[in-house]
């Protein structure tokens, strides 16, 4: 389990959410993103959109499977870097 902080000003709106889902989808590992008590499937755009994570929000990234470590690391990087937005 890895934590990341939403880095960009606009937070997890549609474009970054899509980037996260695309990235998660590139791995075979199951990906769960948790914001507080709210848990979503990181490969589902509808669910990730429901997180509505603002800038500075801490997210937990839980991956399970063969490439879980690589997946978590890549997703953390994306989130921390603010999705290349600002």
């Amino acid at each position: 389990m890895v934590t990341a902080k939403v880095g960009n000003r606009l937070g997890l709106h549609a474009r970054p959410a899509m980037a996260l889902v695309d990235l998660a989808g590139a791995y075979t590992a199951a990906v769960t993103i948790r914001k507080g008590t709210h848990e979503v499937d990181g490969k589902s755009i509808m669910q990730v959109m429901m997180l509505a994570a603002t800038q500075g929000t801490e997210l937990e990234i839980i991956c399970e499977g063969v490439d879980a470590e690589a997946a978590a690391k890549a997703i953390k990087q994306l989130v921390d870097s603010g999705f290349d937005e600002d």
Partner: protein
Amino acid sequence: MKLMDIVVPGAVVAKLGSSERDEVVAELVDALVASGAADAALRDTLIEQVLEREKKGSTGFGRGVAVPHVKHKAVTRMTVAIGLSQHGVDFNALDKQPVYSVFLLLSPEGQPEQHLEAMEVIFSNLSKDTFRRFLRQSETAQDVVTLLEEADAQRLGG
């Protein structure tokens, strides 16, 4: 934030006349202008910018729904129009399926939390099978408004 806080009842189009994505966007912006929720002087700009955003990445997220949107400095509050298509509209959706329910969202600039809250309330409803089904079954704008009120009161199951 509830759906009825942001959806403009006068801009709920129960039967869209258009069947092409770009025309659907225009139809919904026109509905917002006609209901007084958007400035007529902004009409062309809003349509252009929604489509520009749409071309960068489809907001057809699957399951027959699309959430085209734009942020504009002249928009003063979160504003949503809803359009339902009987025959389906090609939104270049992620699942390659037609779109039957369109939520068009106008956001003010500089209010990212509001925008995210609006996305949250829209998606938490659109992700429910029952909500999507009842939406598609709606015959009139009033049907849709009643559905939104039920959803806000959390009287719908998943």
